[in-house]
């Protein structure tokens, strides 16, 4: 039997996210059930004890987020999964993880909102919440898969980035991808790159928990390993102790952003189709990228110079790439299952150099290829 046949299996998006996280070394999960993300918790409850890991169903999503931060501080890679209402509840503690630089991954399988909305219907309404959901000028990484295999790969990548940059990473899925079943061939364990947080080399007495080298990321000592230091959500100095000193507070905040700004090449990933000569570019992410790909293909069949640009890293925003598109294309079409949350960011970077058009739906239905093709035909 060839390896491909041997390893091919039918998998659901949520399952892929869970399995990817496990493959990346996640051994702690705390969560609270919510459609359409619940499968992630159920799989973790079953799989983790077999691997010697821990699963706990907390009393709410606030507690879930708190528990994964606590677990991660002891050196265990940690995950939670939720959807809109639960994601809202997690925000304060996501900010804590950003401020105190604690690696952790939050899977948010988006459903139609606001409020309870349509629990089983897809949406992409949390794009801005993923960016700005918690208060203050915090950095964030959010990755967005368009297929089951990609949910697996990006779950691994989310864990890796969280560990490498010591921050919360959001795997921003949607109901379509979460519940989609596809045939996948998963990589073998030795084909998977795994990144672990950097630990201090110096003696405990010389350790500054929040002093970074040129990477911007301080090495992290896990609780219980002999390095005694303070972790707080207050503005803090390099020792981790609270400070009201304006220069120190600002220095900390700027460094938190530098961690990303200095490493964009590593963090930003994207995909494209027939972009080289494209005059009309469809910029799409998540489930919406699937009909977008089909629409671009059909447009090409009609000899229209259309292309697809697909950011897999939604945040930080791929400014350089969109800037390039702005110089190349006459029109950029942004289909989204929201009222244009990512489009405003595109417009901010394009600054009028190309025509930016939205194709939007907030009725709980996926956008059809025909709707995007229609938009393409209207601008050529």
């Amino acid at each position, binding site marked *: 039997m060839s390896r491909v046949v041997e390893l091919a299996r039918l998998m659901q998006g949520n399952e892929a996210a869970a399995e990817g996280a496990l493959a990346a070394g996640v051994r702690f999960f705390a969560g609270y059930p919510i459609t359409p993300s619940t499968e992630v918790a159920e799989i973790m409850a079953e799989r983790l004890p077999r691997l010697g890991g821990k699963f*706990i169903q*907390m009393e709410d999503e606030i507690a879930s987020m708190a528990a994964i931060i606590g*677990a991660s*501080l002891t050196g*265990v890679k940690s995950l939670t999964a939720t959807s809109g209402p639960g994601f809202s509840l997690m925000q304060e503690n996501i900010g804590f993880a950003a401020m105190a630089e604690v690696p952790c991954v939050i899977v948010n399988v988006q459903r139609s909102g606001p409020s309870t909305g349509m629990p089983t219907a897809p949406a992409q309404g949390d794009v801005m919440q993923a960016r700005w959901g918690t208060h203050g000028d915090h950095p964030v990484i959010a990755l967005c898969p368009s297929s089951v295999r990609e949910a697996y790969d990006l779950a691994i990548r989310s864990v890796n980035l969280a560990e490498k940059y010591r921050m919360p990473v959001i795997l921003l899925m949607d109901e379509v991808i979460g519940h989609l079943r596809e045939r996948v061939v998963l990589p073998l364990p030795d084909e998977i790159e795994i990144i672990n947080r950097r630990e201090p080399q110096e003696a405990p007495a010389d350790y500054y928990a929040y002093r970074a080298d040129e990477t911007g990321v301080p090495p992290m000592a896990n609780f219980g390993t002999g390095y005694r230091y*303070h972790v*707080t959500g207050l503005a803090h100095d390099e020792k981790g*102790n609270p400070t009201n000193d304006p220069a120190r507070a600002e220095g900390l905040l700027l460094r938190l952003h530098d961690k990303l700004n200095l490493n964009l090449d590593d963090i930003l990933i994207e995909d494209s189709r027939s972009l080289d000569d494209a005059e009309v570019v469809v910029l799409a992410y998540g489930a919406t990228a699937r009909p977008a790909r089909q629409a671009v293909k059909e447009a090409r069949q009609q000899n229209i110079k259309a292309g697809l640009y697909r950011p897999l890293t939604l945040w930080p925003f791929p400014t350089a790439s969109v800037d390039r598109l702005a110089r190349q294309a006459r029109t950029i079409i942004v289909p989204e299952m929201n009222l244009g949350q990512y489009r405003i960011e595109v417009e901010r970077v394009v600054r009028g150099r190309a025509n930016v058009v939205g194709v939007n739906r907030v009725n709980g239905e996926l956008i059809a290829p025909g709707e995007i093709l229609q938009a393409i035909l209207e601008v050529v």
Partner: protein
Amino acid sequence: MMEELERYLRMDRFPHMWCPGCGNGIVLGCMLRAIKKLDLDQDRTVIVGGIGCSSRAVGYLDFNTLHTTHGRALAYATGIKLARPELNVIVVSGDGDSTAIGGNHFIHAARRNIDLTLVLFNNSIYGMTGGQYSPLTPVGKKATTAPYGTIEPGFDASELARAAGATFVGRGTTYHTELLANLIVEGIQNKGFSLVEAITACPTAFGRRNKMKGGTEMLLWQKENAVHINRAGRLSPEELDGKIVIGELHRREAPEYTELYDKLILNVQQETQSASIKTMKVE
């Protein structure tokens, strides 16, 4: 004594931020005496706080210390303890922190009987934000948000913990320091969820507004109004009205959460192993 406790303190963090007359330092002192008595390994002990004047205690302590978000200390601590059961985890929190915003985590940590010791600094008020009423403010008392006296009945935090499933509950005061330190010792030694409620004075935000004068008078108030549990049984409900019952209030035997989880792991892994041996035989 002080010198012996200094090894547990981050001396460079002093002077502390508490007001003159505040009882928080006394509670902290009792905690450190308990830690010393038990000779807890400083490198294997994590102290977690919420948000409030009392929770700031963690910043002065030379351990792995975690100052979290308002009300959530027990949820963070649950993650730490479940991930690494071998660590000692102590939580410090205020009355607002653990019974208002954190009330849900409080009852669920107790229900799970996870091996955490919560030292609840009960000063009857929200100290840090300047004196708003908390769920432990006695009815009728004044607060900035209850200028005419609260009309809300308060919780009994110790009763709440007992009802929710805690396996050790004790209450002390900053006047009865030996008792308080001993209760913390018992709490830490108990394998399960322990609550030690420490009645402490906040002259600035509570005493002043409620005609209790300064820190000394508030300490004397504790002396006069505390009744040890051994004596409380002999008093009528009328005699106990307005009194604070102190001492070991509750203890029961129950399996501890992280031990149960470790057993579950063992069982599941053994099952998986024997299942795979069976399939090998079939093949």
